[in-house]
């Protein structure tokens, strides 16, 4: 068992800077060599509404947001009332007595610290309120002042030089206050940290961006949308540094079709969006399928349908990703499981797109995209990067003899690139023959439909997209995909620790389906259940459509990510009640 496993939640009025407190705290803890798992829950309003960030920290890997709050810091009554019920019995609540009234009825150590009043009257710079709050937390959990100060200086707070002095002042004041008042909340994190300089601290979206660039992506076009906008914002800065182009387009349709154009012209391309944008892109994705062009589309899922819950998390765009587009329009769908995996699965998404000349949809989600994680620095020199098949030296240079859509054994044809290869051709979204000419004959449609379907189906053989964990002869087998991996594995580990036989199968590739692995897993367990963050069990239905095995479902659809305890209780329910 972990010696340290602490869940700290900070909540305040949206726009007051609570999120920064959480971000910097998480970074500070990660820099100390600890494992972190953050969780943000934001209102859809710009200002106002309750905003919260949670940091779970442990000395071994932590893989879920945390079951209950150990330390809650709230800045006002609304947040106090909203979250007090989630504090574990005997936990700690730090509240601002000037802004809210504590309810003594709770089994918790409640510490009043007048954050607002101190900032106003002592620090005198309202911008520094969140540094004060940060200092209160770091002081309470035993992080030395010096480390706290370094974080303030090196974090985004440090970048605003004009506030540095008052920020340091606020930090100092926090430490002094805790000491003077003799506040002891009884928790301490270890501070003699291992060397963690090889660690990067990245959110899911950060890792995804860097993965894209590492894979060779040099063209991005996209349209802002929560929670995918920061992919574009991160790349807006990074892309020109590596000589690439980034375009903020007028809508998602322009985003996907610009990608299609750039891919045709030889670039590795990316666009990122959320559900509403993916809905608008399906026609363009079908075009890429038809013209056999590599394109990577990231969908950072949020609560749906329609505009839905823009700042909440859900895994409910799966069916759109699998089936969205008229006609038979196969594509590859992958889903990274954690922030580190966002890097590697994105690299693989590009490799798959290039190898199979097909659109690849990568399903992330609000929770994964925004949570920070400490991850080992990727070794760029060892990264496998795939390039699309091109006409070979021995091929005829005569365009009349070039078959862009040649029916080969592996269904993959050489693709010539404008400006580089003399074998010019006209790509078309109409049905065509091997020579890329428009052809409506039954023969052409049969052949090309099969080429497109079989090519993608063969990608199911790519290794490394499905992982099995836990008992070999499990009573309960949990099947999950994407970002639910962490809570599933944590719940499984707890159940295993209690002596239950539990296993888990986690998919990172959803289409084509690694069917053999799925079947073998289901056959090996007594009860197979698909655990996902949506109402109808979209992955379960999809598995059933392929395997014809009835599967149980465990679904959550509250806009919030799984907690390990959600799944742990489910496992126990199955074990106890069958």
């Amino acid at each position, binding site marked *: 068992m972990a010696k340290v496993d602490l869940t700290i939640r900070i909540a305040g009025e949206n726009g007051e800077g609570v999120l920064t407190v959480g971000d910097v705290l998480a970074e500070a803890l990660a820099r100390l060599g600890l494992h972190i798992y953050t969780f943000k829950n934001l209102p859809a309003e710009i200002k106002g509404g309750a905003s919260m960030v949670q940091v779970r920290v442990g000395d071994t890997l932590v893989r879920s947001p945390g079951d209950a709050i150990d330390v809650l810091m709230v800045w006002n009554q609304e947040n106090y009332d909203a979250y007090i019920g989630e504090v574990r019995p005997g936990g700690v609540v730090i509240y601002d007595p000037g802004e809210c009234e504590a309810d003594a009825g709770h089994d918790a150590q409640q510490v009043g610290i007048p954050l607002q009043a101190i900032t106003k009257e002592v620090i005198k710079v309202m911008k520094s309120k969140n540094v004060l709050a940060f200092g209160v937390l770091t002081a309470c959990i035993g992080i030395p002042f010096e480390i706290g100060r370094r974080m303030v200086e090196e974090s985004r707070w440090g970048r605003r030089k004009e506030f540095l002095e008052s920020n340091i002042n606020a930090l100092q004041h926090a430490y002094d206050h805790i000491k003077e008042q003799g506040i002891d909340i009884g928790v301490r994190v270890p501070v003699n940290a291992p060397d963690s300089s090889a660690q990067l601290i990245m959110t899911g979206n950060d890792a995804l961006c860097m993965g894209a660039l590492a894979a060779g992506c040099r063209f991005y076009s996209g349209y802002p949308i929560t929670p995918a906008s920061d992919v574009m914002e991160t790349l807006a800065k990074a892309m020109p540094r590596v000589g690439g182009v980034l375009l903020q387009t007028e809508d998602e349709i322009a985003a996907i079709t610009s990608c299609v154009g750039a891919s045709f012209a030889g670039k590795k391309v990316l666009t990122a969006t959320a559900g509403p944008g993916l809905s608008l892109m399906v026609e363009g994705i079908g075009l890429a399928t038809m013209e056999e062009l590599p394109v990577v589309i990231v969908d950072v899922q949020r609560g749906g349908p329609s505009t839905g819950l823009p700042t909440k998390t859900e895994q409910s765009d799966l069916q759109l990703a699998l089936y969205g587009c008229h006609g038979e329009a196969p594509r590859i769908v992958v889903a990274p499981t954690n922030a580190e995996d966002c890097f590697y699965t994105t690299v693989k998404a590009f490799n798959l797109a290039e190898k199979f000349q097909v659109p690849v949809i990568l399903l992330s989600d609000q929770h994964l995209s925004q949570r920070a994680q400490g991850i080992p620095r990727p070794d760029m020199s060892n990264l496998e990067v795939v390039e699309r098949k091109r006409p070979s030296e021995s091929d005829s240079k005569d365009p009349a003899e070039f078959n862009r859509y040649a029916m080969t054994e592996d269904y993959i044809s050489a693709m010539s690139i404008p400006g580089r290869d003399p074998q010019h051709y*006209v790509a078309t979204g109409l049905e065509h023959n091997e020579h890329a000419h428009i052809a409506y004959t039954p023969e052409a449609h049969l052949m090309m439909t099969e080429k497109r379907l079989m090519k993608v189906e063969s990608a199911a053989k790519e290794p490394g997209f499905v992982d099995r964990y836990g008992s070999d002869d499990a009573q309960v087998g949990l099947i999950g995909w994407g970002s639910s991996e962490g809570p599933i594995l944590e719940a499984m580990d707890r159940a295993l620790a209690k002596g239950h036989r539990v296993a888990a199968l986690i998919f990172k590739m959803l289409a084509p389906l690694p069917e053999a692995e799925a079947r073998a897993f289901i056959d090996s367990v007594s009860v197979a259940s698909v655990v996902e963050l949506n109402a109808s069990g979209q992955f379960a239905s999809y598995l059933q459509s392929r395997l014809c095995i009835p599967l149980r479902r465990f679904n959550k659809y509250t806009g919030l990510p799984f907690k390990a305890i959600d799944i742990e209780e489910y496992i126990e329910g199955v074990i106890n009640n069958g």
Partner: protein
Amino acid sequence: MVESVAEIPQKKIKDYRSEVKPTWCPGCGDFGVLSAIQRAFAAKNLEPKDIVIVSGIGCSGRLPEFVNAYGIHVVHGRALPTAAGVKLANPDLTVIAVGGDGDGFAIGGGHVPHAVRRNVDITYIVMDNQVYGLTKGQPSPTTPTGMAALKRSTSMPKMAPYEGVLENQLNMLAMVLVYGGGFVSRTFSSQATQMSEIIGRAIDHNGFSFVQAMSPCPTFYNTYDPWKEAFVDLPEDWDSADRIKAIDKVMYEERDGVFHSGIFYKTDDLPSYLTKMDSVYEKAYGGESVSSVDALLDQYA
């Protein structure tokens, strides 16, 4: 862009003819546009491998298939964003977007202002027949309002059987002018020489260039007679540096039964997107070689 170096043999129109015979109806104006484009390519001696023609869906959208060059025939209305992607991916290419009035100004109309304001160096040729040809003759955004158009069309009475088209006609030249277009022109498919000259100059323009290529659809909306009558060249002394005057000129022409052909507006003062990207790169990696991705990771360390 390939320059006409002595060693490269001068290309001819036929060098840009593909093995596919055009599938247009006999007499379709699009034939004239096709040969004007091919002629312009020949005049510049462009290598087929360095040309990309991008098109949407429509009779006009078939054009790339008939040209001996790279082409990409995309979905309805999306030629412009696709063309921007092509050009930005490889600035050395000559990129032409073509399409119909419906493709460009109905379903694709949302992209036009942005293609113009982005000012990527592509040439956009709209083959305007004031009708939806491929879907058999429904009115388009440029079909004249009211009963007039119905007389020349067997198909439009189906969609607009009582009072003709109720919507007011759009004026694409005026639109591109207010969007801030740096090269705005009109030609007529029956004047192939002028058309190829204008297309040539459009290609030369550094930035987004616009060519309204009036191209009748004799099958569904036969405008040959009135257009032949209405077309006149812009006056010799036309001042193509005055945007407002150009807007004024084009706004009420058709109502007045006149079509001027020529370059209504041209400026060299609008830096293209790629020109601006040069400054971006200058700042992003300061003239040295680009950064490695590994180095970018440092920000997360």
